[in-house]
């Protein structure tokens, strides 16, 4: 239990985060982007847990709970938005929603 070095845990979090990040950048499908964001959030939560376990303090876990809450809220709002976009544009292509083009 104690023998797992913190670096390894953090490295895992980092790798997961990177994978999520890559996916956000390459995907056009907006649902995939949402999924990737979930991966990233999860990775961040993992980093908190790793740190919390290293210090044997509850704070890391509490942060994870907050991230979890936030992820839940985010995903519900995000999905609602996706539905809207799909209804408006009849596509899941995020590039089509470029109304903010300057």
């Amino acid at each position: 239990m104690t023998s797992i070095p913190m670096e390894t845990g953090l490295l895992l979090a980092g790798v997961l985060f990177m994978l999520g990040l890559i996916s956000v950048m390459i995907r056009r499908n907006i649902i995939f982007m949402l999924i990737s964001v979930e991966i990233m959030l999860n990775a961040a939560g993992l980093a908190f847990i790793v740190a919390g376990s290293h210090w044997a303090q509850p704070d890391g876990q509490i942060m994870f709970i907050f991230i979890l809450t936030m992820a839940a809220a985010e995903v519900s709002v995000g999905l609602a938005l996706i539905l809207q976009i799909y209804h408006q544009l009849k596509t899941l292509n995020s590039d089509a929603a470029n109304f903010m083009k300057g």
Partner: protein
Amino acid sequence: MELTFYIAATVAVLATIMVITRYNMIHALLYLVVSFLSVAVVFLTMGAPFMAALEVIVYAGAIVVLIIFVIMMLSLTREDVEQEKAWLQPKLWMGPALLSFVLLAELVYLLVIAEMPAAPVAGSYVNAKAVGLALYGPYILGVQLSGILLMAGIVGAYHLGRQKKKVIHRFLQQQEPQKERSAAI
């Protein structure tokens, strides 16, 4: 225990790679569930069983289910998978992957050069009681804020999820009349 950790970590990474390379959304989501579950195992090895449970219930359970519901509502077909395939050209991977690896490299470098302070306590097991006490003790404000956030999320989701006839902003309408087509439908 160590071995468990490494196996779980490997599974998590592999599952995540699978998530991000799938063309079919449902497949990707299944891999995502695998990824979440393996992360939950990692949590267990880290001495956070309560969090592992939450991970399974909320992430692998609620969130993924939510996404699946939505995908079902959109009634996607094989064309969409083909479309996804067309979008996901190999050459697209290069830039983002490079950027991310640079970032990862820097992160690793930072981890390597950092002098890790030794853990003060040998046993790093933190039980649910300690978490609950901290949560409703010093973090009570955070809990309340989370409640508000969830409330806002519910309201927002409800509001956004409603079907409306026409929601294109008047500025956009004036400036980009070609977007009318989507609004007209």
